[in-house]
Every structure is written in structure tokens, then in C-alpha cells.
């Protein structure tokens, strides 16, 4: 039915365009001096139909699910839902949905069958209603647009103001994404802090989120102290930065100052390939090659290395960040005015001295900005650590040990059971909130440094 609605929409748009186009042409042929070209009349009608009708369909699709669910839930006998938690009600609704979808297991209660029947009916009528509403709105807009065609109607201005508003709303979408992130995270985080005290989360040194979700499950009592998780993140990010920063900077210096054009033409794309490899590939690389290699290396020297050591995840993350840092450093070195370089070379400094004593200090702000962005990447990087780092949170800074990170916890807590009513799943949102705030602060600082620095030389 959704397809039918969209078909109606596009037919109406086409009809509107043609109707107004021909009406305007007829007027012009009749000798009227038209304000706008015929095409603008057509385009005006097309957008007049398209925008509201399209909005209606999207609105309907977004909200019909929740509305139908609400109606079905209200129709269920009150005594069956009495005293049941959110999770149990969700389970009942899921069962009703699967009955409605034709997958009946065992013999469900009669009231569940009734609910499923209602669900099917409501879904069908909602689909019909959507098509009818779409058709009605499209017809109404067609009529409105058609009735406006006249010699002195400013169709071009009308069309352009619609387009202008559309573009403004596109730009506003970007703001709404940020608002959406902040709103969804803070909403769920707020609910989390209703169950777990704020200071227990921020200052707690024990992280054991595997609490029982249903009563009969056996699990730990649960502890939600974020410090060990953040310590683990820091350990892995530090390892990554210790590898990425020197290698990235040195390769940028070499490519910028010593390499000839041919060498640059070969190595720059290689670095770009490294940057384009998806992180899930790096994660697999870490467990396939790096972690076993480190383990056997450690065994040779009698050093105990955990199977998912922070060194493997951090090392591979470092490789991933090399191109990131080197391209930032390259840009920063390239932005230093040529006169500084030429001046240094002219008084007899070698290339190395020019880079180390003139270019590098001048480029420091840009390089620091790049390194900060890389740190924010390392903290927010997910797949490498999900695959190669550990799950158990430990208060340790030993990189040979297995540590866990914020992103690992977010992913493991939210894979599988996701009823938003227990501290276990909600804690993932709290972690996400802290992750978002920290990376946001680093990003803002980095972007400000980079921007300010550009202004100095521009």
C-alpha cells in the first residue's frame, strides 16, 4: 500500500506540472502577457503537490506503528496486563505481532487472538486510510495550484520561495541530527540515573553490568562504575597514539620534504588505501595476525600476554590512525608560507634543519589539532576493540593485559536483549553520553586550533 501511496503522489505531481504548464500556455496563446514562464507555473504546481503530500506519507509511516500498538494495547483485557512490568508487556505484544503475522506457536489465549485480529484489521485500515488521505490531499493541492494560474501570478517567485524553504529545512536537518543525538542520549541517561546513583557511575571502580533481566536468571548483583572502562579506553588509545603519532609525523615529514614527486605519487595513495580500509577489517586483522603473533612472541620470552591484549587492539588502531595523522601533518606543513622555507634554506640550513626548526614549529598548531582529532577517533573507535579487546573491566594500566573499552561495552550491552527498562541496557546510553561529550570537547578544541591557525597564514 505504501507503494500505491507513492505512485499516487508521483502521478499527482506529474499531473500538476502538466495541468499548470498547459493552462499557462493556453493563457499565453490567448494573448495574455504572463509574468512567469510556463515552466515555472508547472514547477510551482509540482512542488505544491509534492511537499505536503510527501510529508503526509512520511508522517503516517513514522507514527502509524506506535499508534496501532497503542490502540491494540488499550484493547487488551485490563486484568491480563495488571501488575506486569514493561518487559512482560513487550513480550505479550511481540507474541500478538507474531500471531498476526501467521506464526502461531501452541494454543494462545483467546484474548491474544482477539488482539492479533484487531492488529490485522487496524493495519489494513491504516493502509487504506493512508492511500485515501494521500489521494485527497494531492487532489486538494492540485486544485489550489491550478486555481492560481493567472497572467499576473508570480509563479517563479512562488517556486523559488518553496525551494528556498526546502533548502533551509535541509540545513536545519543537520542541526536536528545533533539535537536528536543529545536528546536521545540524555533521555535514556536520565532514566539510567534514576536507577543508579550518578556518583556511583562516575566514581565507581567496578563495572559488572551483567545483571539479571528476568527474575529466574542467575547473574552478578551488578555494579556500574565507569572508571575501569575509561581506564581501558585510555590504555588502548595511548598504545594507538604511541604508534600512530611518530610514524604518521615522520612519514608526513619525509613525504613533504625529502620525497620526490614520483615517490609521493606512489606512497600517498598507499596511505589513502590504509585510511579507507573499514575498521571491521582491521579488527579481523588484529585477531587473525597480530594477537597470535604477539602471544607467541610473548611465550618465547616468557612474558604472559593475554589472548586479547590491549597491545593488539591498540597496535592495529595505531596503524589505522597513521594516514589520518600524516595527512593532517602534511596539510599543516604545506600551509606554512613558502617564504619561511625559502628563507631558511637561503641562509644555508639543511632540509632537516628547515623542517625541524622552521616548518615544524610553525605547523605545530595544525599538527596538534590533527593529533587531537586522532585521539578522539581512537576513543570512539568501535569495531577493532569489539573484536580484539576484552570484555571484562579491570583497573589496570598494563597494556599486556586484557582491558575493555567504552565502545566495547556499548556494543555488547545492546546486542541481543534490548528492552529499555533495565539499568543494563540504559547504562550503554550513559556510556554513550560520556563518550559523546568527551569526543565533542576534543573535536571542538581541535577544530578551533586548526581554524585559528589557518587564519594566521591565510
Amino acid at each position, binding site marked *: 500500500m505504501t507503494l500505491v501511496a507513492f505512485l499516487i503522489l508521483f502521478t499527482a505531481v506529474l499531473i500538476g506540472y502538466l495541468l499548470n504548464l498547459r493552462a499557462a500556455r493556453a493563457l499565453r496563446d490567448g494573448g495574455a502577457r504572463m509574468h512567469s514562464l510556463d515552466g515555472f507555473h508547472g514547477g510551482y504546481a509540482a512542488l505544491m503537490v509534492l511537499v505536503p503530500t510527501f510529508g503526509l506519507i512520511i508522517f503516517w509511516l513514522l507514527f502509524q506503528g*506506535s499508534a496501532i500498538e497503542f490502540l491494540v494495547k488499550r484493547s487488551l483485557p485490563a486484568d491480563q496486563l495488571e501488575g506486569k512490568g514493561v518487559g512482560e508487556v513487550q513480550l505479550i505484544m511481540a507474541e500478538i505481532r507474531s500471531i498476526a503475522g501467521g506464526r502461531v506457536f501452541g494454543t494462545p489465549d483467546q484474548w491474544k487472538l482477539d488482539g492479533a485480529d484487531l492488529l490485522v484489521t487496524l493495519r489494513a485500515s491504516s493502509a487504506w486510510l493512508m492511500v485515501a488521505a494521500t489521494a485527497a490531499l494531492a487532489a486538494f493541492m492540485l486544485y489550489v495550484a491550478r486555481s492560481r494560474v493567472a497572467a499576473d501570478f508570480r509563479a517563479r517567485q512562488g517556486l523559488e520561495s518553496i525551494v528556498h524553504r*526546502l533548502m533551509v529545512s535541509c540545513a536545519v536537518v543537520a542541526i536536528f541530527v545533533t539535537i536528536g543525538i543529545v536528546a*536521545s542520549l540524555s533521555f535514556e541517561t536520565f532514566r539510567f540515573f534514576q536507577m543508579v546513583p550518578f556518583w556511583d557511575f562516575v566514581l565507581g571502580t567496578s563495572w559488572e553490568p551483567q545483571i539479571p533481566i528476568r527474575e529466574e536468571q542467575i547473574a552478578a548483583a551488578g555494579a556500574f562504575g565507569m572508571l575501569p572502562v575509561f581506564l581501558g579506553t585510555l590504555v588502548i588509545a595511548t598504545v594507538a597514539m604511541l604508534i600512530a603519532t611518530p610514524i604518521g609525523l615522520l612519514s608526513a615529514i619525509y613525504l613533504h620534504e625529502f620525497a620526490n614527486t614520483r615517490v609521493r605519487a606512489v606512497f600517498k595513495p598507499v596511505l589513502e588505501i590504509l585510511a579507507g580500509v573499514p575498521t571491521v577489517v*582491521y579488527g*579481523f586483522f588484529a585477531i*587473525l595476525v597480530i594477537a597470535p603473533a604477539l602471544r607467541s612472541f610473548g611465550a618465547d620470552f616468557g612474558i604472559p600476554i593475554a589472548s586479547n591484549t590491549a597491545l593488539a587492539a591498540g597496535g592495529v588502531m595505531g596503524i589505522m590512525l597513521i594516514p589520518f595523522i600524516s595527512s593532517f601533518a602534511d596539510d599543516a606543513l604545506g600551509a606554512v608560507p613558502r617564504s619561511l622555507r625559502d628563507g631558511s634554506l637561503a641562509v644555508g640550513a639543511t632540509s632537516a634543519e628547515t623542517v625541524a626548526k622552521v616548518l615544524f614549529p610553525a605547523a605545530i598548531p595544525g599538527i596538534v589539532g590533527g593529533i587531537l582529532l586522532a585521539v578522539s577517533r581512537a576513543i570512539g573507535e568501535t569495531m577493532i576493540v569489539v573484536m580484539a579487546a576484552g570484555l571484562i573491566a579491570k583497573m589496570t594500566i598494563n597494556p599486556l593485559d586484557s582491558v575493555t573499552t567504552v565502545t566495547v561495552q556499548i556494543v555488547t550491552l545492546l546486542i541481543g536483549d534490548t528492552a529499555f527498562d533495565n539499568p543494563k541496557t540504559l547504562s550503554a546510553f550513559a556510556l554513550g553520553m560520556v563518550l559523546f561529550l568527551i569526543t565533542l570537547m576534543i573535536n571542538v578544541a581541535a577544530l578551533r586550533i586548526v581554524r585559528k591557525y589557518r587564519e594566521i597564514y591565510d
Partner: protein
Amino acid sequence: MTDSTAARHDWASPEFSAHLRKRKRSEFMLKSLGIGAISIAFGALALLIGSLVSTGYPAFTQTHLVVEAEIDRDLMDPENPRDGNFRQLARDIVTNRVVLGADTDNTDRLTDILSNRAQFTLRDMVEANPDLIGETVEVRLPVADNYDQLHKGMLDRDTPEEIRRLSDREIEIFDQLVEGGFVAKPFNWALFANADSRFPEVAGLKGAIIGSAYALLVCFLLSFPVGIGAAIYLEEFAPKNRISDLIEININNLAAVPSVVFGLLGLAVFIGWFGMPRSVPFVGGMTLALMTLPTIIIATRAAIKSVPPSIREAALGVGASKQQVVFGHVLPLAMPGILTGTIIGLAQALGETAPLLLIGMNAFITSAPGTPFDSSTALPTQIFIWADSPERGFVSRTSAAILVLLTFLITMNAIAIFLRQKFQRKW
């Protein structure tokens, strides 16, 4: 005073040449450090690609048993071939025909040679052509993972029997089959034609590829028009004030927000608040669109900025309206740059895993999605699932899936580079 200056500028003096040597040495040091750093990066890439290719290439072939077999009329009803007893047929094929002449007794677990799913290969074959019933035809059936590994030489025959996954006897029987010419190793079309499976020998990427394609399509349809609209507004129409500044800072920051946060957003808003289904490519595409949006906006703004103002002034001069200038002249000229940025953004979205994990696109689904609203996996999440699977056969399949993903990414980037080289003008 004069003397000392003269001494310092005496290039032949030993102090000076020592000093010069030191300077040259430090120059050499920095240069070699740079070369070392580049070599490490290069070596890491070579190791990455090398290990993926060396573990992944076996998955592009699959060991099959090739035998003449009678499709037994007693096991199925010609009117309704789908319900035939193909499990028994597969069993009969191994025990009755293949090992005819081979020295076996009842204790040999011959049925294990064939993949657990071989019966479905038979079923599909007979269903497609019911005339085969009662005939004797050549059938090609995938063998089980352990035998596949054995045939590809990835199962060490020298390990002690107790810890090997195949007994001496099983290996002996299989070797007899190989000698008898009953075993072939054709290209593994199942890798692309099948959806996921618990059995590595028949697991394929079809569902993941289609799921990724749907998600990318949704992502493109949402982020491309919105991104271009936002970029045009910000670059050509927006007044320079605090609000447009705020939007600009906001977009730059969005581009650096960790991807897992977008996953949390998708999970909380699309699935939690709007009640959309989990695991479907449509929701995945919407989440990816939010991530791709900043990339497209930034690329589009750069492309629009590079169109020289003289174009705009000329169009305005002959009486075009501001929007006619933008849509009739600036946008077409900026299109190559916009498309390049969009393709690069979509390539990033194709490789993105974490947000898709959070919205449940890592479910185990054995059929390819028919529409963007059916549950499915995507290529990167499929890689994640297979990397987590314990069966040996999934190691090479994971690498193969990664090679497939990288092929797509390289193709997309090559198209972007081609567009840039071919159409972008230097003003």
C-alpha cells in the same frame, strides 16, 4: 673579533668540517627515520592484504562430490517433488554409489562426507526439473567443511589422530574418492548465490550484499538531496550570522562524532521511539544517512566554492535570478566534485559496522531480503558474524568476504577518482 669570525668561516678548518658532518648526519638520520616510518606503514598494508589473500583465496573454491546417481522414484512424489525425502537420497548417494568398490563397512560415517545441506541442493535440482525423477544423472554436491579443508590442504594430516577432526579411516576413504575422480573443486558460486548458513561450506554473501545494497540505496536517497540542499543554502544563500556559523561548526563536529553514537541514536529514535523494526536495511540506511550527511555537505560546499564567481556574475548580469544562477550554472559545474564526495561518503558508509550492529543487522538470517523492510545483514556485519564463528571454514570465508567488500570499496573509489580526473576543471 675579526680573527674569530674568519676562523668560523674557514670551511677547511677541522671544527667546521666536524660540524658539517654532524649536520649531514642529522639530515641523514631524519631522512632514514622518515623512510623507516613509511616502510612500516607500507609493510602493515602489505601484511594486511597478504594475510587476507592467503587465508581468503581457498574460500573462492568449494570441494564437491561429483557422482552419477539415480534420483530414486520411491523417495518422492513426481507431483510434489518439494516434499521428497532428499535426506535419504543424499545418504543413499554416498553409501550406495560413491563407495562402490571402496573398502567400507557399516561403522564408517560416510554420510558425514556430504554437507548437511546437500539434500537441499538435490531438492532444488529436482524441483527445477521434475523430469529427472527416476533418471540417473550426474550430481555435484558440496562436501562438509572438514573434508573441504582436507582437500584444500588446510587440515594437517600429521597431527595425532585424537586431536584431528577427521579419523585416519575417514581420510583414507576420502583419498579413495579423490583417486576415483569423484571429487572436484570448482569456483565457489555459492559464496555469491547463497545467503548465510550455520554450515560454512554452503554459507554465502547474497543476503549481505543485497542488504548492503538496500541500505546504501536508502542512505543515498536521503543524504544526497538533503546534503546538496543544505550545502547550497549554506554556501549561496545563508546570511553570514551567528546561526549560520553555528550550523557550520555543528556540521564539522558531526563529521567527527564516533559512529557508535549514531548507532545509539538510530536505536533510541528509529527503533525505540518510532517503533520501526530491528535488523532491516531501511533503518540501517537511515542511520548511515545521518553519518554520510556531513561528508556530503562538506564536499558539496568545497565543490561549490571552487566554481569561480565570474560564472555567477555573468549569469546574474544577463538577468538570471539567484536560484537560476545556482541551479542552472553553479550546480552543474560543481557536479563532478559533488559526485566524487558523495561516492567517497557512500564508500565509508558501506564499510561502517558499529551503527548497524546496534540496530540489529547482525542477526542470523538464512534468506536474502526481498525488500528494504525485510530483516537482513550487511557486508560488514556479515564479516563480523563470520569472524565470531568457531568453525574453521569461516576463517577463510571471513577473509573472502573482506576481499569482496574491499573490491566494492576500491571500485567505488576508482569511480570517484575517475570522475575527478575526467570532469573536474581547473579554473
